[in-house]
């Protein structure tokens, strides 16, 4: 592809996702390189799997999770030129940014849906302080367990345990008190344990 200089914008570069792409990402963040369709596709193929994994933690339906990921990429591509990607490891910075966009998009989608999926009532379940996990459990099983939680519990669990948010940050993001976030987290863990015992027991029984 032909590379030309026009003003301060360099054009026509492909994005190579390897150890050398930090400079290129820095150029993109600072608006020196315009994002071409080829670059977008490379970024998309590079990060789609990661973001899909994130989205599926929040969204029970796979198809909806895919829409969330695509919406997140639309947002990201639109704002990539204005993103302040400060930091040495540009790839990590970009990934964290994309994950954050996906999380926010997923939460917005859950809020917009309003019709919450059926969940198992966990209040009446027995409390288990600690449960050992069966090594044969695969990711789909774990996702199924997670989807058995009420939305709010699942979101708080994901934000705290997997995204690394603090309770104060979760409170700010979700518009709830930090103490409620702690309660929801505790209930989510309790619910997971209860669901696991019920799920594994049912599977073994069946």
């Amino acid at each position, binding site marked *: 592809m032909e590379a*030309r200089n*026009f*003003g301060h914008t360099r*054009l026509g570069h492909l994005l190579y996702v390897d150890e050398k792409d930090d400079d290129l990402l820095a150029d993109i963040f600072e608006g020196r390189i315009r994002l071409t369709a080829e670059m977008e*596709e490379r970024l*998309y*193929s590079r990060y*789609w*799997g*990661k973001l*899909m*994994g994130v989205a*599926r*933690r929040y969204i029970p339906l796979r198809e909806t999770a*895919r*829409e969330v990921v*695509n*919406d997140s*990429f*639309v947002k990201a591509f639109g704002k990539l030129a204005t993103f302040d990607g400060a930091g040495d490891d540009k790839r990590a910075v970009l990934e964290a940014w994309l994950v954050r966009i996906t999380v926010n998009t997923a939460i917005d989608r859950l809020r917009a849906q309003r019709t919450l999926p059926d969940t198992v009532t966990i209040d009446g379940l027995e409390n288990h302080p*600690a*449960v*050992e*996990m*069966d*090594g*044969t*459990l*695969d*990711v*789909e099983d*774990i*996702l199924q*367990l*997670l989807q058995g939680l009420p939305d709010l519990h699942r979101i708080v669990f994901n934000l705290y*345990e*997997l995204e690394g948010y603090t309770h104060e940050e979760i409170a700010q993001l979700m518009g709830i008190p930090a103490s409620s976030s702690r309660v929801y987290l505790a209930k989510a*863990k309790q619910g*997971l*344990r209860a669901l*696991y015992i019920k799920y594994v027991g049912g599977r073994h029984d069946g």
Partner: protein
Amino acid sequence: MLEGGTMDKRPKKELIDGVRDSLRNFEERYDRSEWEHFQQRRKKTRRKPVPLFVKLAGIAASLFLMVYASVRILPLLNPVEDHRKHVPTEVPQQREGPKEKEQGQPDSLAADSLVQPVGRYEQSEVSPLSVNGVNDDAVNRTKAKETVGRHMATQRHQKQRAARIQRIELKARLQTAGLSTVRDQNPGRLRQQSSPQRRIDLPEMDGLTANWPVISGIRLGANITPAFTNKGFSLGGGVSAQLPLSNRLSLEVGASYMKVKVGQDMEADPADTVSLQRVGMRNAVGMVALPVALSYAISESFSVSAGLFPFRVVHGRHTDILLRYRWVNDGAASAESTGGRLIEERTRMQRVDSVYLGNTYIGFIQLSGQYHPPILKRRNPVLAPYVAIPLGRLRSDEYRWLHGGVSVRWYLR
């Protein structure tokens, strides 16, 4: 990444830790069809851009409304119109004077109705030594009318008022039309205007009236503009509005679409008879511009203008001119000749180009002369030879953006 979404065998751990570890690095396998899904999704969610012709139509409609409003609405605020309205109402009243008198209506009522206009008129003629000014003079005039006779006074005022209205009309025409036109039509009257009496009337045209000719003088026009660059000819066009700022100075704003062809040529290597060589590049750039220019009238038929031509590129097409040298054996060659000749094959390869597309530029400085030819005067045609000098990024671009031509314009008014 977990291939196939299956966790590896690992020692038993607490459930929550296991969930966290499993999901933290979980990625789904990417399939190329996802990119197509994404593009479809983006296409669906992307807001449709407003078509160019809709934008241009909007600008044209705005200009038209501006001109229409200035012509139709603002004259209602014009005091000149008020004077005209008063004339027919007052004159019949005075003609009916004797009849009213016969019916027993008091003279003072008729006299009072005349005080206001007479006073305003006399205000300009009264001597500076007069202390009481308008009202005293009006009272004196009323007394005089009572003694000399109502009919004589009425006739005199009618003549004075008619002359005054004529002067006002002439002055309005002088400010809206060219001075020379009126001079040709009213040579004697124009000389009257230079008399001291004309100077007395001037203050009455202050206020809103003073601004009116400027607004009413807006001329709406259309233009066709060819553009010659060093790489070809292209055409553009648009609409514009000309706002007079003074007798000689005017501001012209408009909206136009123009296409400019730029490019460069390269030397080919005749020794290379194998590869396809690029010997030229052309960029045809379509732009929507909002030109602004200041014009100065040197004479009645010639003016000069300087303006800015900012634009946004809405269309771009790149053409590569490719050349291949080929050595062809000449079948008719004699035995002594080397038996061949070099021929060149040129091809053109076009593609949509995004180098300039979507960018906004300061554009060009446009220097122009404007000639009003003495033909089709009712259409106000103007021939405007111009040269456009690139500014900013275009100035340092690898292509030469300098261009020129002769723009043809028509004005509706």
